[in-house]
């Protein structure tokens, strides 16, 4: 079964400690760029967009962020994941005055929103299952994490 997003274990990073939010975003964006998934312009576009339209989301137990930007910066759809060594403070999506402590970043490279809708929607479904997220956060194998993500993000 093909997914509409590239999920690769080499795009999942554990214990990420880049020394700041912007550095972490740039690190993930650079990883996507190195693999040819996004264009060189993607990193700056992600950082700019996060300033204007923050993507922090407080879930039931943890905080996540889903940075993304316009399709023109993207070559192919993918998700890069960073589990942070220590939480970074993100602004809550839609609430410029509220902050959330983020433990995991899911950076989205979106090419065709309409086609990737099911995957995006399943990602939100994944976020809503506290027990699955908890299990995911405790994993220490990127391959296991990729497999869990793939299972959760497949269209039902």
């Amino acid at each position, binding site marked *: 079964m093909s997914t509409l997003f590239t999920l690769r274990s080499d795009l999942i990073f554990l214990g990420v400690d880049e020394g700041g939010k912007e550095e972490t975003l740039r690190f993930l964006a650079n990883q996507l760029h190195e693999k040819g998934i996004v264009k060189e312009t993607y990193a700056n576009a992600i950082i700019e*967009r996060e300033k*204007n*339209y923050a*993507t922090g*989301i*407080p*879930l*039931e137990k943890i905080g996540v962020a*889903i940075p*993304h*930007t*316009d*399709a023109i910066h993207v070559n192919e759809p993918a998700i890069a994941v960073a589990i942070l060594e220590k939480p970074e403070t993100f602004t*809550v*999506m*839609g*609430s*410029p005055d509220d902050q959330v402590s983020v433990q995991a970043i899911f950076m*989205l490279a*979106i090419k065709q*929103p*309409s086609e990737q*809708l099911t995957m*995006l*929607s399943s990602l*939100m479904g994944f*976020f*809503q299952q506290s027990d699955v997220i908890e299990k995911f956060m405790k994993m220490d194998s990127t391959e296991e994490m990729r497999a869990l993500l793939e299972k959760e993000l497949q269209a039902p």
Partner: protein
Amino acid sequence: MAKKRILVACGTAIATSTVVAMKVKEMLEKRGVDVFVDQCKASEAPSKASSFDLIITTTPVSGVGDTPVIRTISFLSGVGMEKDMELILEKLGLK
């Protein structure tokens, strides 16, 4: 009764409004409410607002006149989703 019209807005109309639009439509249909849902960038909301009964947004919007606005990310996080659904029904005059 005319079909209610909901506009879903987010920063770039790429990801979150798409997900929210689908989720809201699905949840309302489950309750037997047939709605027209469109999505746009937050910056486009003022020019589109007048032809909609309700705006749901994941980012602050302004200049949308009398059209009621619900700002929420519950349809993304799952936290507070049922409460927001009640609010949507109320704003649409359906309860």
